[in-house]
């Protein structure tokens, strides 16, 4: 018996090995087969688009043409293709009327611009380095941008978080998902999209969500975006126990979810969440509910995955919805399904002999799935690099956030670079941002804060550690929570504004000095106090006399000595820091207000002398009058020089109520012995 079973066992093992090998081979050559299918599909769709231009479909002519156009551009048909050009010309003649159509027009314009951008990059690569790519990543002011803005504005007209066939109000989830994806295109292209729209969308979806069962264990494998030549992306596994749920076509919270509408609701919720994250109007309660429903919908899709592959009239529409969910969420595997692998295999199997998948609409959806059309610009290309001669000296003004990264051989937008790391949390990116951080000039350090803080998340991963360590290093602080660094970042930003304006009040700078123990902030504030003579900030300066930072300590002493003429009142200069500080505090309590009044009077008298016009002289004279009798000795002292502004006479009369005339000796005689001169 035993000996007779051995051949059978060997045969079974062999079969398993062969099947496994065949499956592995099938996975390995999938990219080539997908490329071939896209090539055949676009070759079949292009003449059909030409036919659509000759005889536009009766229903949704704009939407049908724009959808085919977007699919062809995503399939790398050159932007210079004549049919593509003609299609845009035809679209230009059509007035926006339907939600689907307007959204598809936006897809097409976005696809056109991204294709143009990518073509220009490839051309630059072919011709070697140039000063900059000829085409910017987002359309600049011009016909494309203005068309996109007008379409976005059309979508945002009306009210509420849902759309019907002809605009924003009421409606269904199918129209809504197209509208929301159109608005995301607006965001990606830096167009004006009111924040309230996304809040309304989130509220609409949260209120119509339907939980279908008890919590289940859900595992999702995320694949973060790749950046060619820098990082292939990385996978991250998240496990959670969540109750599955989803949406129905009519936003009915009691209706059972459908596969297409759950994908539509989830992709829309993901877009709204991305738009709302970090904005002040994003209610924490709503945010928590959105997060919960995102997980629940992912769980629903993973448990109903087979329904997305089942044949039916909405197969390609549903697969396109699945692609949007997968690519916006960066999910690679939902539960036990590699959604792209499964969907692509099915689509390859269903491609017809003529290269299409039936109608133009289905062919377009199939191509959009295969090309992963929804992947964001960052996911597709990585942050754009402006190629330069490499000396890093080209961009220096404050308005630009470009930083030179030698590893990239050019300038890159700091916010995009750090944003990419925040999105991917890929440790391979850290050396790049480290270089960018080192390249920031000291006066723009506050910008580094605003770039690093978003990297500091609840996940205690390498990215958070990098953000925390770098912030501590820059600020000169050990420990401290995220909130304290947020405060410091804001203070540094404000400090930069005051430095640039060249004017500040002593009280505000004192507040900034007191807002953090950071020596970085203290050094900047002390420089500003010194530069502008901000006497009201001196109590805060005195408090820095006990600083453990040698530079801060030295500057505090310098500032106090320079502006008061005192080196260390009462205490000896060599006394311990607390003793010196205590002596200064006592001096300030005793003489501070008179000292400030005297310096302020001197400054206002100087202002009167320097002012070129009557208005400025009047303003300074009013300020001087407000100081009251403290100002009188300073005014008389200024008059003693024998050459002075006649406005000082006006001020003296206002303060003393006396009429003495313009001669200083008459004033001195008149006021001799009075309280004001004591």
């Amino acid at each position, binding site marked *: 018996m035993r000996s007779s079973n051995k051949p059978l066992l060997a045969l079974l093992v062999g079969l398993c090995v062969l099947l496994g090998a065949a499956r592995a081979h099938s996975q390995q050559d999938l990219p080539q087969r997908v490329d071939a299918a896209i090539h055949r599909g676009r070759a079949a769709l292009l003449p059909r688009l030409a036919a659509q231009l000759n005889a536009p479909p009766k229903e949704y002519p704009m939407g049908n043409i724009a959808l085919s156009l977007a699919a062809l551009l995503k399939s790398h048909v050159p932007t210079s293709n004549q049919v593509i050009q003609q299609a845009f010309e035809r679209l230009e003649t059509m007035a926006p009327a339907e939600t689907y159509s307007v959204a598809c027009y936006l897809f097409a314009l976005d696809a056109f611009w991204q294709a143009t951008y990518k073509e220009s990059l490839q051309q630059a690569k072919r011709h070697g380095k140039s000063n900059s790519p000829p085409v910017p990543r987002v359309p600049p002011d011009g016909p494309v941008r203005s068309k996109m803005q007008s379409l976005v504005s059309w979508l945002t007209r009306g009210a509420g978080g849902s759309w019907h066939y002809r605009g924003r109000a009421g409606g269904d989830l199918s129209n809504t998902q197209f509208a929301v994806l159109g608005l995301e295109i607006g965001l990606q292209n830096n167009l004006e999209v009111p924040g309230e729209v996304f809040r309304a969308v989130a509220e609409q979806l949260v209120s119509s969500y339907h939980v279908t069962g008890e919590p289940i264990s859900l595992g999702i494998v995320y694949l973060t975006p790749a950046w060619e030549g820098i990082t292939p992306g990385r996978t991250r596994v998240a496990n959670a126990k969540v109750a599955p749920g989803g949406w129905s076509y009519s936003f009915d919270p009691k209706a059972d979810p459908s596969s297409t509408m759950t994908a539509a609701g989830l992709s829309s919720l993901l877009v709204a969440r991305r738009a709302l994250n970090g904005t002040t109007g994003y209610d924490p309660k709503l945010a928590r509910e959105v997060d919960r429903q995102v997980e629940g919908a992912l769980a629903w899709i993973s448990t109903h995955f087979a329904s997305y592959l089942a044949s039916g009239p909405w197969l390609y529409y549903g697969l396109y919805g699945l692609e949007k969910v997968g690519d916006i969420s960066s999910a690679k595997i939902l539960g036990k399904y590699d959604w792209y692998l499964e969907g692509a295999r099915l689509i390859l199997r269903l491609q017809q002999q003529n290269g299409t998948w039936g109608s133009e609409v289905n062919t377009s959806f199939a191509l959009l799935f295969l090309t992963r059309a929804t992947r964001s610009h960052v996911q597709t290309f990585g942050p754009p690099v402006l190629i330069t001669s490499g000396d890093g000296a080209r961009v220096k003004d404050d308005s630009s956030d470009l930083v030179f990264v030698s590893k990239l051989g050019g300038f890159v937008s700091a916010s995009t670079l750090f944003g990419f790391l925040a999105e991917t949390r890929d440790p391979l990116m850290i050396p790049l941002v480290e270089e960018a951080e080192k390249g920031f000039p000291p006066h723009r350090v506050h910008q580094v804060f605003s770039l690093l803080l978003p990297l500091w998340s609840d996940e205690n991963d390498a990215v958070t550690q990098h953000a925390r360590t770098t912030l501590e290093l820059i600020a000169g602080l050990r420990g401290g929570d995220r909130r304290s660094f947020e405060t410091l970042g804001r203070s540094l930003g404000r400090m930069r504004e005051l430095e640039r304006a060249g004017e500040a009040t002593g009280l505000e700078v004192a507040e900034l000095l007191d807002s953090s123990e950071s020596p970085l902030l203290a050094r900047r504030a002390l420089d500003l106090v010194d530069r502008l003579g901000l006497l009201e900030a001196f109590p805060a300066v005195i408090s820095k006399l006990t600083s453990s930072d040698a530079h801060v300590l030295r500057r505090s002493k310098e500032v106090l000595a320079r502006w008061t003429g005192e080196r260390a009142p009462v205490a000896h200069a060599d006394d311990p820091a607390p003793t010196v500080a205590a002596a200064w505090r006592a001096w300030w309590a005793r003489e501070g207000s008179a000292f400030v009044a005297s310096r302020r009077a001197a400054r206002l008298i100087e202002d009167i002398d320097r002012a070129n016009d009557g208005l400025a002289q009047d303003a300074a004279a009013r300020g001087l009058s407000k100081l009251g009798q403290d100002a009188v000795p300073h005014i008389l002292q200024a008059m003693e020089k024998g050459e002075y502004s006649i406005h000082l006479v006006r001020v003296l009369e206002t303060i003393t109520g006396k009429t003495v*005339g313009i001669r200083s000796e008459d004033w001195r005689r008149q006021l001799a012995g009075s309280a004001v001169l004591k």
Partner: protein
Amino acid sequence: MLRAGSIHLWPALACLLLVKARLQAQETAERVVIVARGGKLSEAEVSPSPQLKVPALWKLALEGISLTRVELKDGVRLPSSPDELKQWLLPAGIAAEVVDWRRGSGGEAVASGGVQTLHKLFGVPPAPTAAEAAGVAAFLAAFGPTRVPELATQGQAVTTQDLGWLARSAVTIVRVDAVSDGAAAASERDELLDKVMEKAGPAANIMVVNLPERGAGTVIARGPRLKKARVSEKPRSIAAVKGIVSLLFDPIAAEKNPAIEQESVHEIFK
């Protein structure tokens, strides 16, 4: 006809051109009005203040420069003779009309000073020959006549109500002899100043020279080249005041005058 080669005609023509240019310059130059006040001036008229009842003088001080210490040694008084007054205040060769203002109904001002003609000021060219005169006539016809302002004759009575006398000469000295330091009299003198300032216009140089019976005198002046809203307490003599007046007429020549202190120039002029 102008003969080519008539060499002796060229100096006459050049002289005419010079006269024409200077006359035109005189017509377009800023007017100079000096109000010389003496006698029983009130304190406020010498050292004004915004709260005292001399608003015109205060306005002048705000718009110009105030010199608070003009030293009047040995009881220096306001000269009664127009020639002496001109000698005190004006550089040599400057034509001016001197009017004597006295308090009274209607605020009558009487022109009592001599008038120097422009010919005297600029010099008279030698009389041309008949041929030269014909050439000059042709020249004038081409360039238009040089108008010589009609000057007031000595002793002509004028009033403050229409201030027509102000328009008769580019340089006018108004002599004000204060016989009372009462508020009403001071107010009337300030009103005269107000009218003079208004009539002369903002581009005019207006200088009030106060020579009180007691204490130091003052000068309060405004003008396009004078500093605004400044007070200078440096002691100055009447001669120094005359130096300042000469700067109004010819800043470049005055700069070369060693009698004028450069420090004063910087304190007073822009």
